[in-house]
């Protein structure tokens, strides 16, 4: 179930009396619930994802001036688009929170409504980003043009890939709750999904600051 049974299940298979008095470790009054443990494990994964992104950020920061005579961020970035993308992701983070509350409350309207809004906003974000990428490649500013653009497409594209995978995961969670109901194990997956989606927004905060706002003012 959701809480580890203190003591039981941690044995080495020997009968109780054979273990001797040394095995009295698990006498915590309140062992952590499985929900907390799963959340912690997934948080570790998310931090490792953030560490991976930090390597891309470092690469971008080092290469951001190396335009090889090509266009710089100032020539390419359209801050209005970036503002719309930011609003999309920020609102989707909020609606994702609504969906998480709805799941915990077993409230279908909040859960499905929140997930639907999150999906629409996520797809809107992706549409704007793909439009931006296609526009840049069309005017000869693709990832092969300069080290700056290689780093740009790697960093922002990797985030876009995460959003794409997140959207697929979102649809999976909607289908799982629809098919299996608000089961404890399904709810833990919803929790992990919500953490993932919020983390994407955190990375986007770093991207719109470091890449777009600092890049456009360069």
């Amino acid at each position: 179930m959701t809480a580890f049974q203190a003591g039981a299940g941690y044995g080495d298979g020997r009968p109780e009396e054979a273990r001797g008095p040394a095995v009295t470790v698990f006498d915590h009054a309140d062992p952590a619930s499985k929900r907390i443990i799963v959340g912690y494990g997934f948080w570790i994964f998310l931090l490792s994802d953030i560490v991976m992104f930090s390597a891309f950020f470092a690469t971008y920061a080092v290469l951001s001036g190396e335009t090889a005579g090509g266009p710089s961020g100032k020539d390419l970035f359209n801050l209005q688009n970036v503002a719309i993308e930011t609003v999309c992701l920020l609102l989707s983070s909020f609606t994702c929170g609504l969906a998480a509350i709805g799941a915990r409350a077993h409230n279908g309207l909040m859960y499905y409504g929140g997930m639907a809004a999150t999906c629409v906003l996520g797809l809107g974000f992706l549409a704007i980003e793909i439009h931006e990428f296609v526009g840049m490649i069309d005017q000869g500013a693709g990832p092969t043009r300069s080290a700056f653009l290689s780093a740009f497409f790697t960093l922002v594209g990797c985030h876009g890939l995460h959003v794409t995978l997140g959207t697929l995961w979102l649809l999976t969670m909607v289908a799982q709750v629809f098919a299996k109901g608000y089961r404890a194990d399904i709810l833990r997956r919803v929790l992990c999904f919500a953490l993932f989606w919020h983390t994407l927004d955190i990375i986007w905060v770093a991207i719109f600051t470091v890449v777009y706002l600092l890049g456009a003012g360069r």
Partner: protein
Amino acid sequence: MSSTDDYQPLRGADHAPGDEPAHGREIAEGLLGYLIGLGLAILLTAVSFFIAGTFLVWRPSVPVALVVLAIAQIGVHLVFFLHITTGPDNVNNVLALAFGVLIVMLVMVGSLWIMYNLNQNMTPMHMQMG
């Protein structure tokens, strides 16, 4: 994950402590948290975009201001959206976060520092040609 003791029928079953469905007050509190987070995040984002475009402030201060605003907003997201707080059941999460921040700082500051040094010590291009 899919072991049979995870299974909970929708109705007529006991809930484990901490896993019973949220009720009115809990929902309202959760909603309020997300609303506060959204408000603060929108405010910080708006200020970021405003400062990036304005000439009302001393321009050389803009990059520092943007970085500070971004860190503040990441903090808001962590507290109000990811619920990484200072509560007693959150110690492990905070410690993991602290370690993550340490690694991120090492990677970013270390890379920038080393590459800046290399650039400084490299012979300038025009001197090589001349």
